[in-house]
């Protein structure tokens, strides 16, 4: 055992070490100051972000790249309010996060003291749970509970608010225990009766579809998913959050469904007779008009969060539990009934899917002399890296194109903001991912609009020696919003143009200690990518000047039925 710590701050650091924390993303300030002193002597690495939103997204990137809990630490007041966006982002995407915030001294709470904010109140709606620690003796248990809550059941963000006097309070550290959560008992094993019912339904199905969400990645269930899909011979659709949960080059893969999903994926769900939802939540970007979603399907809904079941769509067979354990149980059940090789062939269904693949492929035109299409750059990057990269994205057209055109082959290689759609996510999330996985190539694929929200974190990357790579797709504006204005507001372009010349991205990158590159012609893409890959001692920013007029298709207008997929503007 190490030496007994003296204060709440020491206890906090001991607790974080006890939880196996290897790095913290944060920014110090008055109220959290005491915690930053023992941090100096701790093996935990601190990564000094340039904005607390950046620190939060870095912690998310870390968590999404590893499956471990990401940790962010900030001061009270503005430090805490700047964390709100990442907290809500992590809540929406079920990312395990622990946020530590300083708070004004206990006696000053409620007095509008300097840098006071009602942090636990603010956090109430954007965390899985939050704590205000009023006695340093509670710290070991509270921190332990926080990590337990963040990482079990449906993962999510947990905030621990610690007043400055509590950080300074003499205390002792003890081995924490989990006695304090009488109401928290996540179900892990699926109910055997439901497992059997699900298999009965799937086995007799003519047109089954596995609809896979981020829960499968959180549960580490990709291997089980692949085995199960083959064993029941059912095609697999992945949501935006689940890209990488199932390999895109698998014969059963249909890609992403929904608003900008592939025609075969979205349409397969529309025609399915059995829909097996695995860790997905029937998000409106997936369902379109709910009443018209999967109208013929009986639904088997597997989720670790009971509140997801029946929230949007009634489930004929609800199964609450961990996706990996349930997939294992489903698999065992199938194999207890028949040999793996005797799966129904469903020839008609697979012929149908193939014909949709052929009739409605993803497509774009790269004119060799014309402006660069983002899709083309993405495909070239994939080719030149063998797809062996962790890619992050912002929010907008570029995000959808990465999701469509990057062929994912493994989980935790795709890190994006799905539920909240947070612009500015890509750069800090990439930094967190790269810090977590220094040996892997981490490439942020960002929009110019998004980049301008958080690019200052590249200073963090440069100074902390975290050599991420960033491609900024400069289409001169908020492409996705402009697309809606073009399509649904008679082409009246309002406040979505950013111009293409300011900032000068390569110069901006160089000023931040990164290497700055620019590519304007399609024939220069490969050399530029190679160049970016050859730099490993500094972050690299590649400005990719792209076609401002390109639109993202397929598309289903908001609230429209998924039967009405537009493959291009002419279909709208």
């Amino acid at each position, binding site marked *: 055992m190490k030496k007994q710590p003296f204060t709440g701050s020491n206890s906090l650091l001991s607790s974080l070490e006890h939880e196996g924390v290897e790095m913290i993303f944060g920014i110090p300030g008055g109220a959290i100051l005491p915690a930053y002193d023992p941090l100096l002597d701790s093996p935990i690495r601190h990564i000094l972000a340039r904005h607390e939103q950046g620190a939060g997204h870095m912690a998310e990137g870390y968590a999404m790249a590893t499956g471990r809990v990401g940790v962010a630490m900030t001061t009270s007041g503005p430090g805490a309010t700047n964390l709100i966006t990442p907290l809500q982002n992590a809540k929406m995407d079920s990312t395990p996060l622990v946020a530590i915030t300083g708070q004004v001294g206990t006696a000053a709470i409620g007095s509008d003291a300097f840098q006071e904010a009602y942090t636990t109140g603010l956090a*109430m709606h954007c965390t899985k749970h939050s704590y205000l620690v009023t006695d340093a003796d509670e710290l070991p248990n509270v921190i332990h509970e926080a990590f337990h809550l963040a990482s079990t059941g449906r993962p999510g963000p947990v905030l621990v608010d610690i007043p400055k006097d509590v950080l300074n309070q003499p205390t002792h550290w003890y081995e924490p225990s989990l006695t304090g959560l009488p*109401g928290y008992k996540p179900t892990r094993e699926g109910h055997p009766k439901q497992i059997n019912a699900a298999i009965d339904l799937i086995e007799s199905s003519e047109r089954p579809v596995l609809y896979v969400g981020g829960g499968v990645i959180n549960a580490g269930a990709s291997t089980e998913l692949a085995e199960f899909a083959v064993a029941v011979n059912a095609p697999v659709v992945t949501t935006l959050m689940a890209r990488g949960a199932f390999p895109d080059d698998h014969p059963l893969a249909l890609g992403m469904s929904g608003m900008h999903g592939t025609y075969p994926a979205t349409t397969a769900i529309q025609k399915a007779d059995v829909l097996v939802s695995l860790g997905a939540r029937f998000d409106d970007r997936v369902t379109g008009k709910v009443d018209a979603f999967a109208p013929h399907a009986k639904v088997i809904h597997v989720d670790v969060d009971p509140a997801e079941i*029946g929230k949007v769509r009634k489930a004929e067979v609800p199964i609450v539990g961990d996706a990996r354990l349930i997939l294992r149980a489903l698999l065992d059940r199938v194999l207890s009934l028949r040999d793996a090789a005797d799966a129904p062939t469903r020839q008609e269904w697979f012929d149908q899917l193939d014909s949709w693949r052929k009739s409605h492929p993803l497509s774009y035109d790269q004119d060799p002399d014309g402006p660069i299409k983002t899709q083309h750059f993405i495909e070239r990057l994939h080719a030149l890296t063998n797809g062996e990269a962790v890619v992050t994205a912002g929010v907008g057209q570029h995000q959808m194109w990465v999701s469509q055109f990057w062929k994912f082959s493994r989980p935790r290689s795709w890190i994006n903001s799905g539920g909240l759609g947070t612009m500015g996510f890509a750069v800090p999330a990439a930094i967190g991912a790269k810090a977590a996985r220094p040996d892997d190539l981490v490439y942020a694929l960002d929009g110019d609009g998004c980049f301008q929200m958080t690019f200052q974190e590249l200073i963090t990357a440069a100074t902390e020696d975290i050599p991420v790579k960033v491609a900024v797709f400069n289409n001169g504006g908020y492409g996705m919003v402009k697309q809606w204005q073009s399509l649904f507001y008679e082409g009246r372009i309002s406040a979505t143009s950013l111009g293409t010349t300011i900032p000068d991205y390569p110069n901006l990158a160089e000023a931040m200690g990164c290497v700055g590159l620019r590519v304007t012609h399609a024939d220069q893409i490969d050399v530029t990518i190679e160049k970016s890959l050859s730099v490993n001692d500094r972050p690299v920013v590649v400005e990719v000047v792209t076609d401002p007029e390109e639109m993202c298709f397929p598309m289903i207008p908001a609230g429209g039925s998924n039967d009405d997929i537009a493959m291009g503007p002419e279909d709208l």
Partner: protein
Amino acid sequence: MQHTLSVTVEDKPGVLARVSAMFSNRGFNIHSLAVGPTNVEGRSRITLVVDAPELEQLKKQLHKLVNVIKVQELEPSETLEAEVMLVRVSCDPASRGEVGDTAGLFAARMIDLSPKSMTLEISGTPDHLASFLDHVRPYGIIELVKSGRVAMKKKSDVSTSLIGGGTR
């Protein structure tokens, strides 16, 4: 549609705020709320009467709150419920007797008396209180305050309507 929910929670700061916020976030109105300790140390019980079209999702969302231990929906036919009401009725010495008689019939207790008013304390089912109010309203109600409803599941199989006041 009104529903009565009994929510057992950890007795910790912020729990009530979380529970009530869960309803307000979704645009549901809490009609009545009562919170207090239970026979188990560290556990409180919140009794809520809410207006909501359906309860399944709300119950699950309540369960999702980490400090919530148990959520029970109480069906009117199998529920014992009670409210406490203080009501100040206008009455002068001349009408005092009549008001006092009515109070007696309803087992209401006089707790304050002035030349122009009588203040009564009454507890019982919501119907019992409503019925009492009907009878004293003609004298003029000066002030009224009601507690939140408390409720628990019945153990006997006697219909609640027979043991006083009836159901809602």
